[in-house]
């Protein structure tokens, strides 16, 4: 327990009691008409506002979603069975919000910020962050130019992600979507240790409780929980809570973003959120459109993802940010960022379905995962040809850009040649070499789970592949070569190769060492 004298406690309480406002206030009340499936219809509350928090006499809460002539539709934040027809509900005049504190790191919370990991209450100074909040306007932003390293070679080399960007991870079920997000979180350990953490928020929506538990265990095992918060709304909780979960994640992310720090939020996945939203909307009897989703499901995702941003460095501008919650006034610092990795599950690779097309058009790029590639053993199963990052090279460190700048195109050429090679038996030596290099690069891009690679090492090994240093290595020994090569570099050339590359610099001295070490590794 905190080390406070009892007298101090009483003094604090006395002050609090003195300040308490006990004058009678007029409250606006309504009456519950109907309650079902996490949704209430309330008679009265004529002045209620959309998104406003309502309070029932027993302390339960709901959020206003529908405003009609004589009634209000609201979604319950607690359980349905504590609300009875005829109960009184009052307005609070506040918007639904979540209490965020530094001590949330390492914890698993529900979308209302309550801990659900059995480790007791969350302490620390609490800052009230609204679930729904307008995204920062253009003048409060700055271009994305700082990389967010995922530790996954094919992404960092060919589909680089920048801080403040929104990059969609899309693919069928069981194609490794979650794996990419989790590896990215694990890869931020280095930043945490170096003292400039990227805080991570993993939002699990509509997943099985056991899946969430195993993800938390993996994050713990890789010491990633030190800088991570998990927001969980499993498939067992009500649809409204699943619908709110990503907003809670965004609100927590904004706390870090607006206090000048970097944060990463993963929404796993937005397809399930859309389904929860559809359920709520249907119960509220909103008109439905394509695939029975309500017409504003696009707006649901766009307003969520717009909140990912890189905030301007200029302190005096950042302080005036639009829609700043009261609790953050005086704490704002410029230069923070919130990066979003939304996940979308497709059915049989159909990216032209409603929700996938929506989210593709909102995000700054997509990483497409394919079942075929996954089954062929190319894991992560990224289809590099159609995956893009619109922020692209500006979010890449120089050394990586220099080494891997052409990798995407040369791999595309290789794939074309490979397709032709199936039909012809004799090839000219140039074609044969291109194919050989392409195959080996493909092997280098295969990367097991939970082993994100620091960017310096990535550049060194990709340099070998791209510059044909592997031509004497048999195809099935490429991975063995990789680990021996990197071992050598780590043992003897950390300072003059790996660290130099990681700092964004590359020179002839560095590449000469790489060539020398590669030759030695092959010689053994």
């Amino acid at each position, binding site marked *: 327990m905190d080390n406070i004298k009892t007298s101090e406690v009483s003094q604090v309480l006395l002050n609090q009691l003195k300040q308490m406002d006990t004058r*009678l206030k007029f*409250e606006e*009340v309504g009456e519950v008409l109907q309650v079902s499936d996490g949704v209430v219809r309330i008679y009265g509350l004529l002045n209620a506002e959309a998104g406003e928090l309502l309070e029932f006499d027993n302390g339960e809460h709901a959020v206003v979603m529908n405003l*009609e*002539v*004589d009634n209000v539709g609201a979604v319950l934040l607690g359980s349905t069975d504590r609300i009875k027809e*005829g109960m009184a509900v009052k307005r609070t005049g506040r918007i639904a919000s979540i209490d965020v504190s530094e001590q949330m790191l390492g914890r698993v919370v529900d979308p209302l910020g309550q801990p659900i990991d059995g480790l007791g209450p969350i302490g620390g100074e609490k800052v009230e962050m609204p679930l729904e909040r307008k995204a920062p306007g253009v003048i409060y932003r700055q271009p994305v130019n700082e990389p967010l390293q995922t530790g996954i070679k094919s992404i960092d080399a060919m589909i680089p992600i920048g801080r403040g960007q929104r990059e969609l991870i899309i693919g069928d079920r069981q194609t490794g979507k979650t794996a990419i997000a989790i590896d990215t979180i694990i890869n931020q350990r280095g930043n945490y240790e170096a003292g400039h953490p990227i805080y991570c928020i993993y939002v699990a929506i509509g997943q099985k409780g056991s899946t969430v538990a195993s993800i938390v265990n993996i994050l713990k095992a890789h010491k990633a929980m030190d800088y991570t918060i998990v927001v969980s709304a499993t498939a067992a909780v009500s649809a409204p809570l699943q619908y709110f979960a990503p907003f809670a994640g965004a609100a927590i992310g904004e706390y870090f973003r607006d206090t000048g720090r970097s944060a990463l939020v993963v929404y796993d996945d937005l397809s399930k959120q859309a389904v929860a939203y559809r359920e709520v909307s249907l119960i509220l009897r909103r*008109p439905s459109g394509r695939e029975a989703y309500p017409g504003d499901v696009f707006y649901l995702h766009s307003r969520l993802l717009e909140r990912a941003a890189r905030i301007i460095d200029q302190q005096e501008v950042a302080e005036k940010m639009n829609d700043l919650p009261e609790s953050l006034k005086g704490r704002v610092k410029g230069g923070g960022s919130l990066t979003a990795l939304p996940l979308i599950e497709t059915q049989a690779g159909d990216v032209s379905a409603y929700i996938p097309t929506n989210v593709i058009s909102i995000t700054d790029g997509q990483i497409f995962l394919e079942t075929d590639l996954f089954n062929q053993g190319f894991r992560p199963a990224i289809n590099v040809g159609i995956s893009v990052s619109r922020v692209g090279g500006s979010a890449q460190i120089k050394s990586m850009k220099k080494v891997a700048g052409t990798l995407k195109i040369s791999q595309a050429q290789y794939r074309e040649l490979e397709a032709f090679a199936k039909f012809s038996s004799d090839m000219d030596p140039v074609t044969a070499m291109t194919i050989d290099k392409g195959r080996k690069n493909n092997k280098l891009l295969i990367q097991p789970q939970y082993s994100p690679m620091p960017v310096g090492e990535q550049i060194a090994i990709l340099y070998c592949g791209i510059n044909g240093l592997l031509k004497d290595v048999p195809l099935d020994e490429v991975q063995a070569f990789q680990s021996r090569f990197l071992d050598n570099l780590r043992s003897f050339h950390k300072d003059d190769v790996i660290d130099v590359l990681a700092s964004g610099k590359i020179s002839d001295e560095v590449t000469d060492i790489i060539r020398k070490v590669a030759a030695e590794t092959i010689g053994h």
Partner: protein
Amino acid sequence: MNTGLIAYRYAKALLLYAVGEHVEDTVYHEMLSVLNSFRQLPQIRQVLGNPVTKTSDKLKLMLQMCASTPPSTAYERFVEMLIDNNREELLLQCSRQYIEQYREKKHIYVVRLTTATESDQMTVDRLTSLLKTFDSSATVEYEKTIDPDIIGGFVVQVGYNRVDGSVKSQLNEIARNLR
């Protein structure tokens, strides 16, 4: 679907018709007992909304709910119209709307007064005269509840506005502030 607006229009039409026929008071009392029936037996709504229930049964049920024998012609016609237009589900909301619109027209204020013990006549008189200062032609109907749970003080609700002066809510407020 904006059921509130639809019910509002039905109720408005009924009130206009009833005023024309000079039976608005009768219909008001009928609507009060309809609302009361819904309060006592919430299942009625399911029955009325169920497409399998026979319309003749629905009609019979709806006529019984108004508790006057025989029901006024205005009410009978209204119920038949609801059935013709497939809106029998809206009876509950229509009854609320009618009651509200009628009260507004007649300057009737319903005061829900909750106290821990029997409230004395003086309090009631004071409330009435207070309301008369806002609206001189006000008629005040009281719905008194005795609820020992609120410990002391009172809760007054007029329309959608409530003043909670109960000891219970003040204790709750203190508890919340200390948390």
